[in-house]
């Protein structure tokens, strides 16, 4: 016979195990605060439990060569890999991670959005696979007017 307390303890243990395997349902995870506070590509990957990212031709990042207004820079990220997560990063922003997309079977791994950029910087698209491997592509975007301070 189990007491309520033991049952609760066990479910906490199981939840912890699930979380550490990364199998926990993605929408049940809390906001990835650590990842959004990380400063570099490697730190973001680490915060998301992925291995160190490797450059890959199967990932594409899109954006203008020169952005006149750093407050609205159109960026795209896409991959032909079966990625679990697709990220967009701006290296020299106060925190590098801009957006994280959780990919399901029903959407293509191709996303577009607009980001703020404080200064000219490399922009990364990162694909994180189910097994934690990470691949990236990068592109330099020059900004003539920053969009973070003011």
């Amino acid at each position, binding site marked *: 016979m189990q007491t309520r307390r033991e049952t609760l303890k066990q479910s906490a243990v199981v939840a912890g195990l699930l979380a550490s395997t990364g199998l926990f349902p993605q929408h049940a995870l809390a906001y990835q605060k650590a990842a959004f506070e990380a400063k570099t590509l490697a730190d973001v990957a680490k915060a998301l439990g992925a291995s160190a990212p490797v450059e890959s031709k199967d990932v594409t990042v899109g954006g203008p060569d020169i952005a006149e207004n750093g407050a609205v820079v159109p960026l795209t990220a896409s991959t032909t890999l079966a990625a679990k997560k697709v990220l967009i990063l701006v290296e020299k922003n106060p925190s590098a991670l801009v957006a*994280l997309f959780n990919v399901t079977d*029903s959407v293509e791994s*191709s996303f*577009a*959005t607009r*980001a703020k950029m404080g200064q000219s910087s490399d922009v990364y698209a990162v694909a994180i696979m189910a097994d934690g491997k990470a691949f990236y592509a990068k592109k330099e975007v020059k900004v003539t007017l920053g969009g973070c301070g003011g």
Partner: protein
Amino acid sequence: MADPMRIRAQASGDKATVRVLMSHEMESGQRKDSAGKVVPAWFIQDVTASLNGKVVMTAEWGPAVSKNPFLQFVVKGAKAGDKISVNWKDNKGDSRTDEATVS
């Protein structure tokens, strides 16, 4: 309460391209007001998109996404007449859901 989103979903073949324009301040937490005080961050954290009630994509955003955010993604297996709904939640707990029909 925030203004409605503008959602356009266009089918081509067995896919639909969804474009969403949200109305949100997306304050980065880096700016200072005229008195020199930092304006607190206020931005959309979670975005969820569903096709006919089934979640197809979730996203997490940081404050670096632009004001009045734009988002584009492609849903597989969507056809004309299907319902796409998009929901966002910001870091102040405010949220909004809007729906559009694939055309």
